[in-house]
Each structure stands twice: as C-alpha cells, then as structure tokens.
C-alpha cells in the first residue's frame, strides 16, 4: 500500500485510515489484555462472588447439663427464612409478598437486607417459623426466587426463664461485630449468621459452646435462585459443658422466689427483686443461682421483638443483672457472725458473759429494732435473737480494725473468684475506707453500725453464701464454681473442675462451734427464724437479717445451712425491699430445704417429728428482736 503507484495524496489518506484502524485495534487489544490477562484474577473473584454463595450452616451449640445429666440448655430444630443477596436491592413485589407471608413489616425486612452490605451470605429474615408459613412460602416459590428455607438448630431453654442471668442468651452476630472479628483474625470462623453467646455462661463459654459453622456452596443465578449445590463443609457441633447446678434445687428455688415475691407484693411490700445462691459447702459447687426478676432467653434465640426488648430494657428491676453475684447489699445481721466470731476469738467476751440489754447501748444511743429490751443475755441468746445492743458492745470492745480483719477472713470485700462475668467485690467498712472516700475520721457510732452489718459494708449474696459455707464446713474457703466439666467435641472430657480451696479461717474451732450453736438456735423456738422451722425434721442453722436500704424498704436476708450436723446445702437469700428477713427471706429458704429434704410443705399441725425437748432455745422472750433497721447516727 505504501509503495503506491498512485498519487501521493491518495496514498497518504489511505495510510491515515489504516493507522486509525490499527490504532483502534491496538487500544481494544490492549484493554482486552489488561482485563483478561493482567486483571483476570480480580474479575474471576467478582464472578465467583456473583454466582457462588457460601451458605453457612449453623453448628448446634453445645448443651449445658446439670450435675445429674439433665439438659438445662439445648437446641432444637427450627425453620428459618433467609434471603439470598443478589447484589441488587430486593425487588419490591418480592418484598411485599414475603412480608405478607411472614406477617412482618416490609420495612423491617428491607432494613435487614439493606444493612447487609458486605458479602453474599444469606440474610436471616425470620427464625422459628411455623409449618403453615413454610408451606405458604413453598407454594409461592416462583414469586420468591431469592428466598430460602433452612432447618437450623435453634438455641432452646426448656425451663424458659430459669437461671436466665446465669445461662445468658444468644444472638446473631451483627455487621459491626463481624467486622471486629474479621479485623482481629481474618480467618475467623465467625461469619454472617453465626450465633454468638451474649451474656452469662453462653458468653463466657462461647468459644466452647459455639462449635464451627459449616456451609454449603450454592450456585445461584442473577435472581438469587439456586441452580446447583456444590461442596459441603460439615458443621462441628459445639462442645457440651456440665454445670454444678442441680435442676431440682434450682427449680425449687425459682418457685420459692416466685411464690414469695407474689406473696410479699400482695401484702404491699415493693419486693423489687430477689437473689438466691445455693452452695455445696464441702466443695464450693453452686447448686442453684436465682436472680429475680428474670427474662426469657428463648425470646432472643427466636429473634427478640422490639416490644419484648423495650419491656426488658425499661424494667426498673434490671432483669439482666445477676443479682446473686452482682448485687451489693448491706449484709445486715448475718454479719453478726463475723463480729461474734471475732469477739470470741480475740477473747473480748466469753460465751457465758452476760451483758445487759436495756434496749439501748449506754455509750451511743443506738437501740434494738422495735425498742425491745432482752435483759441479761449471753452470746448464744444474742445471736439466736439477733440482739443489736449485745453486738454494739462487741463492736465497742473490738474496734473497727478488728471487725475489718475478721470480715476479710470470711471473704468479704473481695471477689469470690467464681468464673462468671460481672461479679461485684462488695465492701468492708474500715477507717481507711472512710478516710479515702469521705476524707473524714471514724466514729464509735459507725463501729456500732459496722458490728451489725450496716455502715459501709456491702456484700453479694454469693459472698454471703461463701461466708456461711465456711461456718458450715469448719472454716475452709472454697472458690465457688458453676462449671464442673467441659467436653471435647467428641464427648470426652477436656477439662474437669473440682473444689478449689482458697484458704482456711484462722479462727479456733471452739469459737466456730459456739457460733454454729448460736446459728442453730436461730431456727428453733425463740430464734428469729424459729416460727417457720418449728416442726422442720432437719436441723437447720442460719441467720436472718434486715438491712437498711437508703432507696426504699429494707432488704430481707436469710442465710442458712443444713443439715446442722452434716451440712450439705448452704443457702443465701436476699429479697430486695422485702422487709424483715424473717418474713421475706426465710420462707424461701424453708421451701428450698423442704423440697431438697422431701418435707411436705403444707403446715404440719401435729407435733414436730423432733421432740421439742431436744430443741434448744430460750423459752422466754420474743422471737423477733431481729434486725432493727438502725439508722446510723453520727455523733458530733
């Protein structure tokens, strides 16, 4: 062409055409080369993202068993409805259709789909749908191309609200959490739709319980319809854990609390909540743990509704708080165990020394609850009848520093170390504490308050139970524990937890025997809990308490162990704003023990099985000189 015989002008113009055409093809070829050869991998990944969906298959979470192998928390199969993201917004008709079938607000569904920005995992729209809805969706299959129905294991709490704060609850991973997981570990097994433990043991042992989600690879077309199924990655179910909880005791405790709260409220007490801890004093194993009010973790497993969430969230009585470990209350009269043990141990008093209760202490004008006066009393009577004046005098003789030291011997003011999240420390009143917080001197009147468990003392029900365990078992402090065994995925034990001894009380056995005897007499005729345990066939030792509450009615305490001679249970109960411990907390302990020892609960009209002559206790005197709500009086 170039060596033309034709005119120069014509030749050059054909050359220009040729160059233009060549240029066009070079540009196209270059672009093609860039896209297919250089950037092919990038586009391949995009194409795979378009048509391949890794559909996660949720692993069944591990089961929580009680100490006898009863299932406390398990899983059950449930139908879930998901939408396969297509990379495009959901078609309006499909959305409306789905909303009608599921009886849901279309906006709610749209929000869920729109929130799902990254990834192509199916978006879970509804969980645990009924067979009717499944049928309905299948009938409209052609109108709902991107909708899939799967059977997935759904977390199931067969006892509904039981021990809800202890067990916790689960929920689907949120988009933000997913990003966090991926930022921490790019190979995280957590993916969209993974169920995570949100609270309690579900959260604490999430790694154990969760298992590894599997998945199946689906090939979908542009409308999200599945055209083929690829390879599967099988799920690895979560490992089981065994709790020290005894479901029968737990059930009895739950029922006793519910019954008592109803009763108290019927009588006009606020009774805003309650907590129960039942320990095995010989091991520290938690046999039951109740915190009222409770919530139903099944709501979360199914996907909580806004109404349910608002109801729980606005409940002033904090249903999510595990009051057994996180609730801090003035210990009140059960603290007299500490004061009494300290006074005997330091020989500030002999068990037989008679101290005159005139209704008020002679140094500081502090009185018994109802202004009663018990006259000349010894240590045993003072403890059994919970005499305040006697223990003011003990405080007077001990001084705040000794009270603090002995309180710490019993484990107050520090976490018990139970492996649960959110445990509170409590507090021990001390001169140092007052100086630190209020920058003020310590007064004798405050020592009096501290001696009877008021002042700055704060204790959790679990601490109270640990204190009582040491009284019951002869002075060994065990770390309370609630998980006894963690399994491997194959069911063999991975880890076994047993009693863990933290220390022993440095108090002579003789002193502790005297304390135990005093506590024994609390539940006999004339003791502060004597009424209810009058005809109880098992000997119970315990201590009632009524602790002053600045925000409302007094809290009622009762902490006890039984049988007296061979303790198997320690129970600590608090009823928030329940009034006197003897009337609010004691019935709960009574019912739990009655259930445990198979005692008929209806009032026994005949004489008790135990002859009254065998019962100790003072014949005279009122049976309730307990727990006077003593206002701290500051002397100036």
């Amino acid at each position, binding site marked *: *062409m170039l060596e033309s015989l034709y005119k120069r002008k014509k030749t050059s113009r054909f050359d220009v055409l040729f160059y233009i*055409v060549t240029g066009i093809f070079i540009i196209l070829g270059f672009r*093609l080369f860039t896209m*297919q050869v250089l950037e092919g991998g990038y586009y391949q990944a995009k*194409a795979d993202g*378009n048509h391949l969906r890794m559909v996660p298959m949720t692993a069944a979470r591990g089961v929580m068993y009680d100490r006898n192998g009863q299932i406390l928390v398990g899983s059950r199969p449930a139908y879930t409805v998901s939408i396969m993201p297509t990379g*495009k917004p959901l078609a309006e008709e499909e959305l409306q259709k789905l909303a009608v079938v599921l009886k849901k607000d279309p906006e709610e569904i749209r929000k869920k789909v729109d929130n799902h920005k990254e990834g192509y995992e199916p978006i879970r729209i509804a969980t645990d749908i009924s067979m009717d809805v499944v049928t309905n969706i299948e009938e409209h299959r052609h109108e709902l191309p991107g909708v899939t129905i799967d059977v997935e294991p759904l977390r199931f709490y067969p006892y509904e609200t039981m021990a809800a704060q202890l067990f916790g609850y689960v929920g689907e991973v949120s988009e933000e959490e997913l990003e966090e997981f991926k930022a921490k570990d790019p190979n995280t097994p957590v993916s969209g739709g993974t169920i995570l433990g949100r609270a309690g043991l579900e959260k604490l042992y999430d790694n154990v319980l969760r298992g590894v989600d599997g998945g199946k690879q689906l090939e979908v077309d542009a409308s999200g319809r599945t055209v083929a199924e690829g390879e599967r990655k099988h799920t690895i179910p979560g490992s089981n854990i065994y709790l020290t909880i005894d479901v029968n005791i737990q059930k009895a405790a739950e029922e006793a609390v519910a019954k008592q709260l109803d009763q108290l409220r019927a009588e006009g007490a606020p009774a805003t909540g309650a907590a129960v801890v039942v320990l095995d004093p010989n091991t520290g194993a938690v046999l039951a743990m109740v915190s009222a009010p409770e919530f139903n973790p099944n709501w979360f497993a199914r996907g909580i509704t806004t109404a349910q969430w608002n109801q729980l969230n606005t409940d002033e009585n904090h249903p999510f708080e595990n009051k057994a470990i996180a609730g801090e209350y003035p210990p009140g009269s059960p603290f007299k165990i500490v004061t009494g043990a300290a006074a005997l141990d330091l020989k500030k008093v002999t068990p037989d020394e008679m101290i005159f209760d005139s209704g008020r202490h002679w140094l500081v004008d502090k009185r018994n609850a109802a202004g009663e006066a018990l006259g000349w009393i010894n240590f045993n009577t003072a403890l059994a009848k919970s005499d305040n004046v006697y223990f003011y005098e003990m405080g007077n003789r001990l001084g705040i520093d000794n009270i603090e030291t002995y309180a710490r011997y019993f484990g107050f003011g520090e976490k018990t170390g139970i492996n649960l999240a959110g445990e509170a420390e409590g507090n021990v009143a001390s001169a140092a504490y007052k100086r630190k917080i209020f920058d003020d001197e310590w007064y004798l009147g405050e020592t009096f308050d501290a001696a009877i468990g008021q002042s700055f003392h704060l204790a959790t029900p679990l601490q109270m139970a640990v204190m009582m365990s040491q009284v019951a078992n002869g002075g060994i402090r065990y770390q309370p524990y609630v998980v006894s065994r963690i399994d491997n995925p194959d069911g063999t034990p991975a880890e076994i937890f047993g009693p863990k001894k933290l220390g022993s009380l440095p108090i002579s056995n003789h002193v502790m025997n005297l304390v135990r005897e005093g506590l024994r007499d609390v539940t006999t005729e004339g003791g502060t809990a004597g009424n209810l345990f009058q005809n109880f066939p098992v000997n119970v030792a315990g201590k009632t308490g009524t602790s002053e509450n600045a925000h409302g009615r007094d809290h009622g305490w009762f902490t006890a162990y039984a049988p007296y001679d061979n303790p198997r249970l320690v129970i600590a109960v608090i009823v928030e704003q329940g009034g006197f411990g003897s009337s609010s907390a004691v019935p709960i302990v009574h019912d739990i023990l009655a259930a445990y020892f198979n005692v008929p609960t209806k009032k026994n009209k005949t004489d008790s099985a135990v002859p009254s002559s065998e019962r100790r206790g003072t014949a005279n005197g009122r049976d309730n000189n307990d727990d006077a709500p003593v206002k701290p009086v500051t002397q100036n």
Partner: protein
Amino acid sequence: MWLRIWQRCDWTIIISTLLLVSIGIIAIGSATHVNQTGLDASTLVAKQLMFFLVNVVIVIGLQFFDYRKLKDWANSIYVITLLMLLAVIFVGTSALGAQRWIEIGPITIQPSEFSKLLMIICMANMLEPRYEQLHTFKSLVFPVLYVGFPILLVFMQPDLGTSLVYIAIFIAMLFVSGIHLRLVRIIATTGVLLLPLAWFILKDYQKQRILVFLNPDIDPFGSGYHIIQSKIAIGSGTIVGKGLFNGTQSQLNFLPENHTDFIFSVIGEEMGFIGCAIVLLLLFLLIYRSIHVAYTCNDRFGMLLAVGIGAMLAFEVLINIGMTMGIMPVTGIPLPFISYGVSALTTNMISIGILLNISMQRTKYIF
C-alpha cells in the same frame, strides 16, 4: 467463469467472514442455552444460521452483477431509504424504548441496519463526481444536507448509535474524497472547542449516561449494571476462558442482552483472551482488506464504497467491543457478523458481497 471467480476471490475476506459468523453462531448458541433447549428451527441460533446460509447464496449471486450498476439505482435507493426510515417512525414497533423495527410477516426487520449500507451506496454515488472538489465550505453544503436528512430520521427513532455510525462513514468517505485538509482542520478544531458546550444541550438522562460511562459504580443497579457485569464476564474469562456453556455470567443471566449487543462478553468469558484475540484479528483482517480493496480499486465509486463499508465495520467494532469492556458508552450497536440479528447480519453479508465484487472487478484489467 466459476474458475475465474475462484481465482480472483479475496480469500482473506471470505474466510474471515465465515469464521466470524461461525464463532458468532456458536456464541449465540451458548448465550441462549442451546445445550439445554436443543437445536430446533425456532431457536435464535437456527434463525441466524438459516439467514447466514441464505446470505451466502445472495453473496454468491451478487458476484454475477457489476457493482457499478448500483450507481444507476442510487437515487431510487436514496428515496427508498428515506421512506423506510419514515415508515419506522410511523408504523414501527418499539422495543427497549426505541422504535427500530418493522414487522413483515414472521420476521421483523430493522431498517436502520439496511439503511447503513444503502446510504453508503448513495454517498459513494453522490461523492464520486465531487472527488477532489471539496475545497470550500460551500462545496460541503450539499453533501452535508444529503447525508444529514437521513441521519436526522435515524436520530429521531431515537437511535443515537446508528446515527453516529452514519457520521463516521460520512467522515471517512469525505476524507478519501480528498476533502481539503484545511477544512478538516477547521472543522476538527471547532468541534473540539464546541464539545464542552454540548454538555449543556444534553438532556439529563444523556448526561447521566455519560457519567455512568465514566464511573459505572455510581449507578450499579441501573445503567451501570450492564457495564459492570460485562466487564466481570470478560475479565473472568482470563486467558483460555471458562469453556463453552460454562460462563457463569452468561449462563446464569447476570449478563443482560448477551446474545445481541453483549455477545463479545460471552466470547470473552467462555473463550478467553485467545478467543477474543482471534475475533479481533479476524475483524482487523476484514477491515484491513476493505481498505486494501479501496486502495487498489481503480474506480472511484468502488473505492468510496469499500471505504464506507470498512468505516462502518471499524466504527461498529470500536463502539461495541469498547462498550463491553467499559471504554465506550452503552449504545445499541451490534458486533458485526457475531451479534444475533438477521437485519444486521444480512446487511453485513451483502456488504461483504459488494466488497468481493469490487475486489474482483478491479482485477479484470490486470489479466
């Protein structure tokens, strides 16, 4: 006679055309899932194949005429073209928002496709006497009006793409007609300077199209969707492709219009860089040969015809393949010989027939 034809034939053109149409039919088969539906007369592949065979006969038949006879019919052709384009506006069926089709019995024809070739014939006839005469703006007035009228009709369908093809053909033919370079320079400079102003007279949706073309991600589910999916299809084909019927983009309907305007994306996905490079090479050979035919033609009418046909093919290839790779805006221009469409195929085949005719006539004098 047969032997002479056999010897004088431009085999490059013939073989390139046959290969391109074959690749096209295979790609259409894949795009329309012919492996699932089975091959019967109703399928688009069968239609395309049938029309291809008919066209082969027409192309052979065309060799018994002298293309110069077309000059005698040029004026009638011009009138017929205008009538056809008017007919589309008044009795045409619309699809995809544009009126481009006329239904005749069982087939629908797309007059704007045929009109491209018809206009090449008319333009060649009109420009032949003006060869090397186009030195002044005044001399351009008639050619511009002559071509401008049908362009306007196509533009009103509306078919922006085809009217741009007309303009490209016209410019190429003016260029080889010896338009004075001074005029070219002035027109080109004014055009470049006025281009930004065009933005202000564009309608909103046209502006949107240009923005989407520059960045498809601003509207990934609307007009950007085609471009994004097409790029994914081509890019994911890599070097050897995913294999026929195995393209996930085209087989699972992620790629729209995959047997017509986006057929190149199917080839890119399923036949890879190798397949695409072969297609580009064949198209290049064809266009190169058409320029070569024009260049070696000793007849100005034939030269102009060949340049027009070459320009038409080159521009369509640029616009269509560029569009599938995201470097050209989306317009409804098919890929010559490969896209499904019997009107386009017939037009392109007849163009090849004319090209072959010119190439044989020019050699008459050599022997």
